[in-house]
């Protein structure tokens, strides 16, 4: 019989001189890593259960703990890494699909970091955001090229309903179910305080969050979980999720142990059952079907809600977006393959899709070539790390960005990538009451507000440096970008010049 033991990747390091065996770590760790060993009279640990979430480290009153990467190793092999070997063992052992959480950790190119922003020198002035107005307000929705006037000659606004944001940053779709109610509540409160929107994801809208409807995007995904008329009417906009960056081509999967109680009720599914969304929408097998769903939703909501189509960034994204821009949708959200929160099959997460930078550049260019860029607004998501990424996304052609991972980090997530286990020690991605109550929605909301406020300040400073005092003037302004270290083809796709040009 084959006997295999996968040595833990991380080890708990306990400073014996500081540890006073208070057992706080035992209380904090839902993975039961820490225990008191009666035989030795000291604290001990089960390293194999550790997910490296830093909960014990942060809460140890004695600051006695840290997590170190194990130096356990296989025989050196440039072709077969430790990860790859261990994945084979795991699959040989269990016969299952590998699951992981959050975006891909693999070393794919990050184009944001290869793009640099401009600043004014001599020929035009930079603008001081401390002393001059610096505007970040954004409207999302179609623009018209047809002027209508009423009988008195006044301009008549003939456009569909739009969304107004104080800053071009929205919280991307993360469902109640994958997240705790406290985490969802924090997102809703923060969106309201910031004058932006959060997104329900595919889990429906908990009844306590209906009052935040004006700052809510309600999602309709292939499982239609939690979708009913009242739900559609509750939000400010409706998002049809065709795909998501972490798992293009497949639907969501909430394991039964997370789909319990209020979560199951909100989704309108049996308590404790796996909530598995179909890979496609079974009423959308082509673009003309999408158009019908867009208009069904608009009819159901009296044309009062903009409709967002969220797609994963895939190879033919330009043509897909061009079809969507003619489907009656108001906004297209493009989700890059490096993005992702929640659980996804590892192979899909790490191998399917394309980076959002290239997808965004291609879509923006394609829509302009066809003269229909005004039909829709663009939201880019999938690995927006900082305010600089936001500014670069807007200069490439986005109207706004979605942030998911950064929002989770703000609430306390430590990117241990174990959401699928349902035992989030930070109370974010769990439905275990003792764990989820660790997240105070007020405090988490405040941290989200802080983050977006800080980023908005930074965006203003970057804009001011470029001599731009309104975010509209940065939109699609690719001359404000230069690339470093990219090849001709990459420059061509991004539509930017190389630094020094």
């Amino acid at each position: 019989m084959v006997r295999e033991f996968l040595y833990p990747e991380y080890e708990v390091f306990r400073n014996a001189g500081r540890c006073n065996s208070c057992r706080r770590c035992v209380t904090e760790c839902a993975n039961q890593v820490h225990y008191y060993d009666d035989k030795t009279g000291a604290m001990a640990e089960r390293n194999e259960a550790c997910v490296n979430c830093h909960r014990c480290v942060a809460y140890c009153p004695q600051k006695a703990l840290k997590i170190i990467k194990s130096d356990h190793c296989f025989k050196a092999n440039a072709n077969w890494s430790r990860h790859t070997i261990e994945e084979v063992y795991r699959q040989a052992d269990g016969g299952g699909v590998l699951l992981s959480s959050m975006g891909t950790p693999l070393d794919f190119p990050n184009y944001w970091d290869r793009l640099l922003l401009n600043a004014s020198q001599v020929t035009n002035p930079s603008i001081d955001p401390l002393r001059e107005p610096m505007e970040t307000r954004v409207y999302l929705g179609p623009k018209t090229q047809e002027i209508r006037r009423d009988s008195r000659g006044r301009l008549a606004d003939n456009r569909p309903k739009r969304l107004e944001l104080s800053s071009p940053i929205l919280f991307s779709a993360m469902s109640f179910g994958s997240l705790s109610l406290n985490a969802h509540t924090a997102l809703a409160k923060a969106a309201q305080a910031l004058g932006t929107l959060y997104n329900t994801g595919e889990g429906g809208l908990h009844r306590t969050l209906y009052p935040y409807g004006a700052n809510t995007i309600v999602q309709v995904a292939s499982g239609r979980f939690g979708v009913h008329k009242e739900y559609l009417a509750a939000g400010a906009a409706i998002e049809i999720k065709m795909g998501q960056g972490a798992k293009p081509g497949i639907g969501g999967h909430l394991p039964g142990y997370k789909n319990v109680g209020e979560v199951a009720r909100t989704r309108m599914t049996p308590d404790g059952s796996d909530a598995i969304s179909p890979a496609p929408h079974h009423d959308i097998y082509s673009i003309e079907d999408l158009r019908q769903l867009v208009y069904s939703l608009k009819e159901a909501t009296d044309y009062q809600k903009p409709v967002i189509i969220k797609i994963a960034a895939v190879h033919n994204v330009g043509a897909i977006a061009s079809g969507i821009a003619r489907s009656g949708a108001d906004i297209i959200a493009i989700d890059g393959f490096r993005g992702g929160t929640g659980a996804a099959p590892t192979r899909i997460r790490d191998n399917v899709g394309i980076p959002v930078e290239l997808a965004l550049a291609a879509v923006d260019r394609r829509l302009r070539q066809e003269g229909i860029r005004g039909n829709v607004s663009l939201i880019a998501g999938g690995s927006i790390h900082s305010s600089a990424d936001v500014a670069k996304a807007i200069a490439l052609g986005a109207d706004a960005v979605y942030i998911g991972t950064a929002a989770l980090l703000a609430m306390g997530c430590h990117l241990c990538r174990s959401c699928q286990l349902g035992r989030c020690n930070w109370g974010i991605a769990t439905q275990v009451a003792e764990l989820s109550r660790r997240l105070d929605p007020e405090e988490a909301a405040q941290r989200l507000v802080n983050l977006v406020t800080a980023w908005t300040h930074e965006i203003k400073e970057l804009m001011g440096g470029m001599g731009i005092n309104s975010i509209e003037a940065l939109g699609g302004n690719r001359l404000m970008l230069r690339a470093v270290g990219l090849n001709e083809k990459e420059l061509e796709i991004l539509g930017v010049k190389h630094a020094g040009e």
Partner: protein
Amino acid sequence: MNQKEGQIRIPAGCAIAGVFSRSGERMDGSAIMEAMTVMHDRSNGLGGGFAAYGIYPEYRELYAFHVFYDDTAAKTRCEEFLDRHFDIVNLSKIPVRKVKAITGEPLIWRYFMNPHPGRLADSQLEEKEYTARCVIRINREFTGAYVFSSGKNMGVFKAVGFPEDVGRFYRLEEYAGHCWTAHGRYPTNTPGWWGGAHPFGLLDYTIVHNGEISSYDANRRWIEMFGYHCSLLTDTEVITYIIDYLHRRLGLTLEEAAAVIAAPFWQEIEAMPEEKKQQLTYLRSNFSSLLVTGPFSILLGYQSGMMALNDRLKLRSMVAAEKGSRLYVASEESAIRKMEPQPDRIWAPAGGEPVIAALY
């Protein structure tokens, strides 16, 4: 070899001046040339030019094209095109005088024409749109030919040189018009291409501009969706297209167009009476990609009027004055006083506030 406009984006500082007679009284070009001499140091000899309105009354119904040619081959190709698309009523060299400071002149020709009726009908386009598309096509596709003026009863005159020398070169004291605008250029390199001098014109719209806008590529990439092609990569070119699009094609008033280009800040819009607030919110949010940021002062000339507009922070100097039926605008007050020592009123228009003069 240095790259010229269109191959590279060249920032430039400048001097502008303009005079408009609301009563339609015609003035010769000497006063505006004088005005430019006092702002000599705002230019560096790498571009100067003038636009004049009301100068071709005998051909007032015809499109007057002013064209630069690099050589006779380019001229032959372009004239073939013009011949196919227009009925040419008159053509001639534009008369010039030799001026020591002005060298390297291209062939400079003038055509008075009507769109070819059959072609126009086939195109299903309105006459101005047809003409504009022909201009854009020549400037984009015909190497060595460049249409730098294309309106009716008006003309642009420009060259590489200081504006006062350019004026003497074109013998502008021999033309009389009810409106003159002028430009002296201070580009940051030495392109030495006549087409790159200003004013920039399309149909009867001309723009002289001082500044370097920071929104350039946002504006360019948006306006190019509507059949324009920015072949020069200059601010002036893109601003002219924006005004042509908003004013001529969409039918916005000039005040409305100004509220798009130099939109009030949201905090100002919020404080407006409800109806005005709605109108400005609509304009600003619907045409957000045509908001122009960064420093600019522009003078727009058009068939029956002139508009001066500063960026909304007023990052470039611009002074206006009135005397009788005349409106004067210039980068510096000294230039106005050179044309009119005793104006009735002289003021600095606020950022984003258009000053418009139209024929009575």
